[in-house]
């Protein structure tokens, strides 16, 4: 009896243990799948190994092809796709994108379509809700209707190629390992997904919250002070517009006076908090450079063009490099995985690149509501019913969440705390933007280039241009909304009198072609001069203060002798901080050496004679950076404390810095150095105090030998994995800062030159590199193989298929119908 009881207990225990094993094997932790399917050595994460095998010469069947096509991979992983018709070209591109970036593509479309919580759990619900409110999917549906039939056919062929790979991978049970990690399979690719991917880029580059930030600043500091500290036209931006005029009409009128109430402030705070947690697959802060010089300045007598878009540096990258060849296209450059277009690249006649224009493209409307009129808003003299849309958002590990949004004539309502705020964002205006880029890829001259982009709406870009015939230019088409008699930099009244009455006419958008200075430069600075006839934004985060643009111009103008490819590449790697160059002489004059102790005297010696270059090895760069931060803090923190400003100084350090530079160097009168409750000071006094505190702070952190305070000990770059920190690159000590052409904002910088490209129309050759690799599979040799070259400032030639075939290490897939 005892033995039988023991056996029974043993069996029960064994059952419990087996149940536990199956439970642990099936159910994962957080978003991760269970260990059973994850560790399955034949179909689990381990398939990342076989999936990482580099391509070899082989014949593959690709359903849907009209004729045989080929994909030649060079040793770096760049595919050179050749097809006999355009349909096959984009079908093959879809297949190749999905072969190397399917998970990334799925993740980004999920963000845009509000489906992240479905695979990542309830923590992502706020992101899904926001995206569904903003409405990228709704806009994408409208975008598709505006595509010409041939453009729609391109998207369909591309989707067919993606789906061919999805089906192949599902059949062979070798979907990318990250799908195994999260335990789901991707749905078929739709045309809508590609349109949403374009929308995500627009959101990252052109959806702005600065009117909300400005609301908080105006409320706390007062309208007068806020407009003086964050002017429409800052001093730092006056000498860098690429389109300085003259313009066809008179200058824009100054903005009217502003009033911000408690409700507006509460609504702004609420919405800023809502957007703070959004993931950024592309830009964190807008910053990019492009320029072109014509043949009068180059060694070859033909133009040189450069572009380095500063986006989030991720693994995998936002970019995927390609070379495409078909009867209508012969394009080399970079694509966004998920979209069959080359927004930065070249064909055989012209080259193009982009920086974000950063004009104000987002307007907020404070809708008039009344409890007596529930779910209605007052507009143009009458009450109107809000439109309602509801969604059921699937959530991993839980039940679907019902979400309902309301829309007014202006757009979706994003908050009802304090005020009912609706957003009218130019990215939500339906367009045929993908078609524009397809047309640009086929253009052969400046008129063709401009014609291709005439319907471009958002994100507004400074499209740089150079061609084999010797011409250069920049063209910034897009929607610049015009609002009548109100302040667009603050939430506008929603009752109708401040609605958008039009946009800047296409012929008057910022542009320049073959200028007399023989160069065009854009680096997110305000593109036009002070007498431009339209309001397009303020310094408060709309435009870059202009230091990068100024440094690029200075570097181009100061080079001795005609420009070569190497010169242009060096400027892309330029770590000189123009603000430091300008302010340093004043700082040295402000700090009295006789009063300093040995530590501070030695620190002063480090920066005396420094050239303003934020080299990784430079102690002076560390001292300058610490000083400037302290100078900002010493000047503005008392104001922030006194007025309880709800926006951290660090968030508006760019425009504040521009203003501070102006007061410091010009001696222009300002109340900034006389904060309430404190004695009035001079810039010199504040600078001397800031220098002392900065040096003491560095000494506490790094010891009392200033010569050891290398900038790399303070400042690093991180190329972050989209999936897991263990798959990231860095952090690693690096040069540069937010004001250098080689941009690296923040102490651990996570964005910067995401693609460096130089096109030499003298030799017809072009060069590029980006800090990642072509494959998203972390086991692949092409996962981060380009990072070291990018870091060291090395470039790779953007070869043609024929050139790639002739070089060692290439492999070709012959694609059969």
């Amino acid at each position, binding site marked *: 009896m005892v033995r039988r009881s023991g056996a029974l207990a043993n069996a029960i225990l064994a059952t419990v243990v087996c149940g536990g094993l199956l439970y642990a094997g099936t159910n994962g932790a957080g978003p991760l799948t269970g260990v059973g399917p994850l560790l399955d050595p034949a179909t689990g994460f*381990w398939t990342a190994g076989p999936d990482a095998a580099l391509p070899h010469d082989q014949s593959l069947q690709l359903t849907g092809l009209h004729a045989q096509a080929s994909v030649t991979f060079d040793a770096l992983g760049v595919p050179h796709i050749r097809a006999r018709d355009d349909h096959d070209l984009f079908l093959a591109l879809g297949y190749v994108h999905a072969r190397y970036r399917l998970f990334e593509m799925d993740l980004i479309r999920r963000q845009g379509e509000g489906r992240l919580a479905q695979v990542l759990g309830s923590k992502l619900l706020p992101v899904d809700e926001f995206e569904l409110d903003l409405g990228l999917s709704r806009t994408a549906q409208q975008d598709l209707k505006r595509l010409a039939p041939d453009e729609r056919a391109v998207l369909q062929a591309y989707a067919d190629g993606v789906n061919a790979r999805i089906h192949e991978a599902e059949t062979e049970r070798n979907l990318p390992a990250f799908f195994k990690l999260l335990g789901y399979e991707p749905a078929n690719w739709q045309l809508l997904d590609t349109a949403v991917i374009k929308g995500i880029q627009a959101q990252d580059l052109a959806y702005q919250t600065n009117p909300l930030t400005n609301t908080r600043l105006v409320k706390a500091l007062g309208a007068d002070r806020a407009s003086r500290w964050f002017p429409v036209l800052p001093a730092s931006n006056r000498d860098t517009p690429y389109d300085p005029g003259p313009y066809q009409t008179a200058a824009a009128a100054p903005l009217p006076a502003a009033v911000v109430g408690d409700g507006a402030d509460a609504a702004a705070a609420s919405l800023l908090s809502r957007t703070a947690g959004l993931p950024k697959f592309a830009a964190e802060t807008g910053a990019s450079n492009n320029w072109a010089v014509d043949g009068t300045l180059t060694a070859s007598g033909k133009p040189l063009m450069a572009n380095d878009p500063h986006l989030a540096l991720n693994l995998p990258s936002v970019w995927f490099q390609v070379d495409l060849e078909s009867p209508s296209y012969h394009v080399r450059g970079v694509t966004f995985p998920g979209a069959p277009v080359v927004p930065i690249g070249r064909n055989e006649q012209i080259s193009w690149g982009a920086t974000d224009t950063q004009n104000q493209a987002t307007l907020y409307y404070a809708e008039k509501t009344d409890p007596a009129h529930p779910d209605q808003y007052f507009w143009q003299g009458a009450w109107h019913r809000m439109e309602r849309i509801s969604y059921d958002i699937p959530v991993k590990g839980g039940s679907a969440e019902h979400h309902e949004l309301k829309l007014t004539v202006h757009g979706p309502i994003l908050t009802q705390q304090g005020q009912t705020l609706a957003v009218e964002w130019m990215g939500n205006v339906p367009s045929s933007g993908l078609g524009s880029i397809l047309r640009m890829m086929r253009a052969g001259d400046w008129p063709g280039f401009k014609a291709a982009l005439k319907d471009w709406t958002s994100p507004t870009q400074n499209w740089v241009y150079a061609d084999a015939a010797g011409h250069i230019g920049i063209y910034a088409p897009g929607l610049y909304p015009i609002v009548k008699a109100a302040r667009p930099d603050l939430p506008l009244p929603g009752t109708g009198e401040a609605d958008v009455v039009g946009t800047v006419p296409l012929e008057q958008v910022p542009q320049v072609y073959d200028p007399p200075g023989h160069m065009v430069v854009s680096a997110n600075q305000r593109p036009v001069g002070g007498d431009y006839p339209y309001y397009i934004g303020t310094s408060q985060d709309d435009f870059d203060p202009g230091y990068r643009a100024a440094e690029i111009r200075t570097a181009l103008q100061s080079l001795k002798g005609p420009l070569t490819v190497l010169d242009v590449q060096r400027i892309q790697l330029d770590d000189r901080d123009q603000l430091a160059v300008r302010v340093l002489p004043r700082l040295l004059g402000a700090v009295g050496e006789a009063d300093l102790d040995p530590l501070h005297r030695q620190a002063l010696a480090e920066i005396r004679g420094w050239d303003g270059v934020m080299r990784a090895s430079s102690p002076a760069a560390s001292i300058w950076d610490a000083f400037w931060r302290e100078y900002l803090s010493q000047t503005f923190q008392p104001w922030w404390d006194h007025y309880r400003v709800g926006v951290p100084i660090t968030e508006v350090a760019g425009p504040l810095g521009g203003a501070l530079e102006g007061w410091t160097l010009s001696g222009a009168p300002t109340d900034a150095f006389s904060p309430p409750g404190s004695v009035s000071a001079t810039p010199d006094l504040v600078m001397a105090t800031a220098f002392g505190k900065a040096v003491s702070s560095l000494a506490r952190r790094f010891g009392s030998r200033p010569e050891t305070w290398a900038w790399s000990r303070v400042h690093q770059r991180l190329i972050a994995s989209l999936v897991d920190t263990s*798959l990231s690159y860095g952090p690693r000590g690096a040069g540069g800062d937010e004001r250098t052409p080689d941009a690296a904002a923040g102490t651990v910088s996570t964005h910067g030159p995401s693609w460096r490209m130089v096109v030499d129309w003298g030799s017809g050759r072009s060069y590029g590199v980006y800090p990642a690799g072509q494959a998203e599979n972390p*086991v692949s040799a092409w996962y981060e193989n380009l990072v070291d070259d990018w870091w060291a400032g090395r470039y790779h030639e953007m070869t043609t298929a024929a050139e790639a075939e002739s070089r060692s290490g290439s492999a070709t897939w012959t694609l059969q119908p």
Partner: protein
Amino acid sequence: MIRRQPARLVAAAGVLMVVVIWAGLQIGIWWLALPASFLLTFLLAGGRSVHTAWLAAAAGWALPLVLLTVRGQAARSSAVLSGILGFPSLPVLAALLTVVFGALLGLGGGWLGSAISRVLWPAR
């Protein structure tokens, strides 16, 4: 009194189990080691059969890894997976974890089969 099965029979069953588990893994039936081990020890009662069960399960799970290793595709995958799971990114850790998990499925199933067998047929 436990009736011992001939060693050859147990060994043959073990080999068969390796093949079955390996085949199951190819189509994603990762849990097959558990019922296979259960059957083995349930039908071939005895202490030796439990050892055979977990060893065969471990072998069934290790076999694909061996093939990956031969092709040079295992070490980097293992290091990456180890890192994602929060361990140091060492090539051996995830591989070890994988084989141990397979062995645990075999051990659990074998234990359960043997235990139920003893409940049903105490005299066996």
